[in-house]
């Protein structure tokens, strides 16, 4: 199967980023509240954004979605093949490990329980539809909220790197999530998602 451009579940809709979304997403991504949590915190120009979109449009190893809640765009979630294999399941070398990324730009929902809805939706998709074996997330060492969020989903810290030259020298930690761990940890989150 090829990666879906539209995924719905848990009260949210994930829509593959389109050209019409680019400026909104660029402004979100350049917002210091968001960029301070990113590995690269450099401002993104319109030209860079277009170039990035051209690159990802043809790339079978990554997919980026706008998160919609009650028909309003509130943030971005993405998945990238870690090994370089296509995310598509019929591919000869299917992807076993996928890196996830997400941010909620809408202030009403930032740091809110709602953030679990797109995370669970895409995690389920990766494990159940793409037959992925493990998810991975890279988080700035100082981003305690993201670390706690990922831990609640069942992620475990697998490595710490403190010699980062970007991201204000904060260093990065890598967290990984196995399907078994996810199923155990996500259970209490799912009990509260009643859409």
């Amino acid at each position, binding site marked *: 199967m090829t990666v879906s451009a539209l995924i719905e579940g848990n*009260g949210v809709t994930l829509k593959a980023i389109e050209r019409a979304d680019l400026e909104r997403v660029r402004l979100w991504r350049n917002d210091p509240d968001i960029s301070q949590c990113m590995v690269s915190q450099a401002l993104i120009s319109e030209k860079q954004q277009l170039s990035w979109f051209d690159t990802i449009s043809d790339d079978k190893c990554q997919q980026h979605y706008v998160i919609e809640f009650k028909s309003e765009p509130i943030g971005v979630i993405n998945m990238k093949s870690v090994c370089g294999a296509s995310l598509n399941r019929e591919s000869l070398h299917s992807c076993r490990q996928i890196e996830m990324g997400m941010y909620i730009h809408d202030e009403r929902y930032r740091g*809110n*329980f709602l953030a679990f809805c797109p995370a669970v939706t895409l995690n389920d998709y990766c494990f159940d539809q793409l037959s992925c074996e493990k998810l991975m997330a890279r988080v700035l060492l100082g981003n305690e*909220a993201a670390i*706690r*969020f990922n831990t609640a989903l069942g992620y475990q810290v697998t490595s710490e790197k403190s010699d980062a030259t970007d991201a204000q020298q904060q260093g990065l930690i890598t967290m990984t999530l196995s399907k078994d761990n996810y199923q155990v940890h996500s259970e209490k989150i799912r009990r*509260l998602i*009643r*859409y």
Partner: protein
Amino acid sequence: MKKYVNEESSMTKEVSLFSVFSTALDIPLSEINDQLAYNAIKKWDSISHMGLIVALEKHYNIMLDTDDIIDMSSVLKAKEILAKYDVSF
């Protein structure tokens, strides 16, 4: 929507609610007031919010809609939401 039946006084009900917040968020009872807001303090984030919701549902024997779980942004807002489940203050 499962609703709540109780005949405690308003004061007792408020103390009872504050006590649930205090225990679930691990904050002294004296620091709980209507203005206390989600994400305004480190101890009330999306993770502890889940524990709070479970504690409120257990205490009042109700089941909150997910929209209400998402909208519960302060103690005052919690009172407004709980009122929909017949928990008045």
